[in-house]
């Protein structure tokens, strides 16, 4: 009995001390995980995930506050990548955060634009140019299609137009004439 206690206590003391000390001595510093996650997110900055932009969402994921299936623009694929990165199981996009849709960009109807600059305020990537009371235009290549500018426009002159397919952006389709659906 006594020896037992002594032996185990000995081990325990050594251990507890070592670990307790170590746990202070080498603290783990900020993890690069957030960067990795943020790299996967589409950077549409639309906030549909419930966070003000992709980076915050990435932060939230790595803190375990947010689930990985909240980013509609990222879509199935984004979720798969996240699942891979974090070693979690894949799960379909959660409805309440919206649905995946074809990428589109904002277009401002220049006639009715009153130049209130509210959309400029709203645009997370400064893709809208124009000064006060001049009509504004969207720099299409910069627009991420986040739709944040649509609501603020007091005269709703902003519409989202789907991107047209050009010979550069055209993609070969998945070969169709095959026997079995690929896994």
């Amino acid at each position: 009995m006594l020896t037992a206690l002594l032996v185990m206590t000995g081990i325990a003391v050594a251990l507890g001390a070592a670990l307790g000390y170590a746990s202070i001595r080498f603290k783990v510093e900020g993890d690069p995980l957030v960067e990795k996650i943020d790299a996967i997110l589409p950077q549409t900055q639309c906030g549909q995930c419930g966070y003000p932009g992709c980076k915050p969402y990435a932060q939230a994921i790595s803190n375990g506050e947010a689930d990985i299936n909240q980013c509609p623009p990222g879509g199935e694929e984004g979720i798969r990548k996240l699942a891979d990165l974090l070693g979690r199981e894949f799960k379909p996009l959660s409805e309440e955060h919206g649905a995946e849709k074809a990428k589109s960009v904002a277009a401002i109807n220049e006639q009715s634009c009153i130049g209130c600059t509210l959309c400029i305020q709203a645009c997370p990537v400064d893709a809208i140019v124009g000064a006060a009371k001049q009509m504004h235009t969207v720099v299409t290549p910069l627009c991420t299609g986040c739709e944040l500018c649509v609501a603020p426009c007091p005269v709703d002159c902003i519409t989202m137009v789907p991107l047209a397919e050009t010979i550069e952006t055209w993609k070969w389709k998945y070969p169709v004439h095959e026997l079995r659906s690929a896994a």
Partner: protein
Amino acid sequence: MTSARYSAARTSLRTAGIMVVFTIAFTALMSQTYRMTRPQIEASAQDEKMRLINDVLPPGTYDNVLLDDFVAVGPIPQLGLDQGARIYRARLADAPVALVLEAAAPDGYAGKIQLVIAVNADGRLGGVRVTGHKETPGLGDYIDPKKDRNKSQPWIDQFTGVSLADVGPAQWKVKRDSGLFGYRVGATISARAVTNATGRALEYATANRDALFGAPNGGRI
């Protein structure tokens, strides 16, 4: 930094303290349990042994306290023992009845097969039991009567009552090796191993019978 060190030292002390408390508590718990269960454990170990011995040597046939009447033997290759063991001596009114010895068949299908063998004073096999083996369940494990599907006459019982007089070393083999003893097709190896080991043990026992019985209690050979 120094302050960090300081606090580090303090925290580690605290955690160590807690760790110790827990350890002591649960170690106490364990050793208490151990205390309580130990007799029972030893008892059941004894029972185990006795049960096996009873299988090979009917309890009624002797009157001494078997487990207290033994000779300690060093490693005996012939018995397949690579460290010391005990050979128990059953006596009825001090007359030799049987030797109960442990043996091992090194060449089982999956390693050693432990045996306990009783050799009556007249050189006949009182019985053979497998005390430990790793043979394939369902195939090689018929050597253990508990697992033998043929409950009416387990394979192992074919040795009971046989003596070297009846079966010479030449035939002391399984049928497949042109011997006399049966085996189960598909698992010859196990059978072969047990048979040969039994044969060797019997030879040893018959050869050293008197020395074994004569030796002082608890003495060594």
